């Protein structure tokens, strides 16, 4: 019975911890499927976490924070789209610059709003989520996998990433498809960030994403750029995270495992998964290539 309780708790913790990863990797998926590499996911998440926490703090309502995070994500991703689509800047370098930018801009705004560069004020229980983001994430996985296969616009997205010339020949603007995809990816990734600050924690704290944007990319690659396998990959990384939290302070034969080693467990799992002991993964054909 104890064992049953233990595994149920671990399973629930895994689902909770998977939520931010699922949103971010779905965002990454629509961007990369349209042919645009998205290393900037981390910054979109940070932005979403911050904007969500600030909006929920002032409005005292979680859903307003949730929508504000989405808008904030759309805004920063639109700037990213401008750089990589219109200015044709290198996608990976620009992505890293955006990660730096978010790390600099958030303390800047936080200092203006709250006169501190640390965490935002802690949110009361009423203006936080208890389970909703998890539900939204699951629905989004199903919706996206249906959308990609069964709709005209879903096919546009796939073609923008696989064979942009063909899409162009059929009279659809590849640029517009990519703009829409990249911008929307920012909104989704920002929901990932907001589920950190409004659901898993009770405020925004500096650098709270802790590399989850990159783990989302890893699960995307691991899941071969498909919604449901990517979702499962997110669960794997979340499980590593859940085990990590569970192991902290646990004693084995009277000696405690150093907490620093436990904390790096998810990162090691990511590397092992990415190094691909399970088949190779083929990216969209036109990923990162110019028109």
């Amino acid at each position: 019975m104890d064992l049953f309780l233990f595994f149920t708790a671990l399973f629930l913790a895994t689902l909770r911890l998977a939520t931010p990863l699922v949103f971010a990797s779905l965002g990454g998926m629509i961007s990369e499927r349209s042919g645009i590499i998205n290393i900037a996911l981390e910054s979109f998440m940070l932005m979403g976490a911050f904007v969500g926490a600030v909006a929920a703090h002032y409005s005292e309502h979680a859903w307003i924070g949730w929508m504000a995070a989405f808008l904030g994500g759309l805004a920063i991703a639109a700037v990213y789209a401008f750089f990589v689509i219109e200015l044709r800047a290198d996608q990976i370098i620009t992505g890293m610059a955006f990660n730096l930018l978010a790390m600099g801009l958030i303390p800047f705004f936080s200092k203006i709003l709250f006169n501190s560069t640390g965490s935002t004020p802690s949110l009361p229980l009423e203006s936080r989520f208890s389970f909703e983001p998890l539900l939204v994430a699951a629905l989004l996985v199903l919706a996206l996998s249906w959308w990609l296969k069964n709709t005209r616009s879903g096919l546009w997205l796939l073609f923008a990433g696989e064979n942009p010339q063909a899409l162009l020949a059929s009279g659809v603007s590849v640029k517009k498809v990519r703009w829409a995809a990249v911008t929307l990816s920012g909104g989704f990734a920002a929901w990932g960030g907001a589920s950190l600050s409004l659901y898993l924690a009770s405020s925004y704290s500096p650098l709270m994403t802790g590399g989850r944007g990159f783990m989302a990319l890893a699960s995307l690659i691991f899941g071969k750029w498909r919604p449901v396998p990517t979702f499962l990959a997110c669960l794997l990384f979340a499980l590593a995270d859940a085990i990590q939290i569970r192991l902290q302070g646990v004693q084995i034969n009277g000696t405690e495992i150093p907490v620093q080693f436990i904390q790096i467990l998810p990162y090691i799992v990511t590397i092992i998964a990415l190094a691909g002991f399970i088949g190779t993964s083929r990216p969209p054909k036109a990923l990162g290539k110019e028109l």
Partner: protein
Amino acid sequence: MKRLIGLFVGLFIALLITFFAGENPFHIFSILIKSAFGSMYDLGLTLSYTTPLIFCGLSVAVSFHAGLFNVGAEGQLTMAAITAAAVGILFPQVPFPFAPILAFTAALFVGGFWGFIPGWLRAVRGSHEVIITIMLNFIAAGTANWLALKVIPNLNSQNPETAMVSNNYLFKDYDLIARIFPDTPANASFGVAIFIAVLMWIIIWKTTFGFELRAMGANSEAAQRAGISKNKILVLSMIISGMLAGGVALSEVLGSAGQYRVGFSPDYGFIGIAVALLANNNPIGVIFAAFLMGALHKGAADLDMETTTITRDFSRIIQAFIILGVAGQAYWEHLRTSRIRKN
């Protein structure tokens, strides 16, 4: 030269942002300049930022030449610095001239190993080096924290840092640069960094290996047809990249602090990306770009004290906009070539 325009556009936008915080951008700019070059003490601090940035800029530049993007300089320098400190604490008996050499060699070895992992995974499994190096940054930080706090901690201090290395490992008494800038962490490793930059220029532009490296970065398909081993170049360039980042152990642990302090690096590895881009991956250019970014970083650190709303994080905004300014320039290049094509 065109990169300078990108730099100024980036800096201009960053300063404009201070306007929203109710500051006068001109005032901010003058503080930046004054605090970077205002006195010998300020200049010494600027140089102490410049040295690690030269190492990290070179590290990123070498990987760029091979067509890779090393965002892992931060982890590589962390592992190298903790290694240098560990050697200095665990082997206190080694006599002077050999001691720093031993510690530095060990640091380079570990830094190189930390670069080898992503290079090897990229070559063998095709894993993307950006994600792997980011993950390795977190792993390096965790490992170094554990070593610094649990294995070789400084028992006389509340700060998260290692014990002091034995005096044999420090070259303070022979350090001319440290004498010019008393009371600052500037030290002789600045000269070493410049020497290594020149060395890298020779390696990249004047040797067969450098040619192979650049050929792989420019067109890996053509390079492989010409008989250059892709895997060898990928792995070697990442090892060299890691060793270069490991050079920070010399300026930080052996040159000035004499210990590993948790969080000593204000993300030198990431500022190195801006340095390499500004320098167009030219090792000689890296020296000047590192000096510039070092000056901006020093200036931004002082903004924290001089103004009420701008904090040291402003340095990251400047870095990001400079990278974007330089990266966005590809557009003008593209416009020009498409115009030529039309004619």
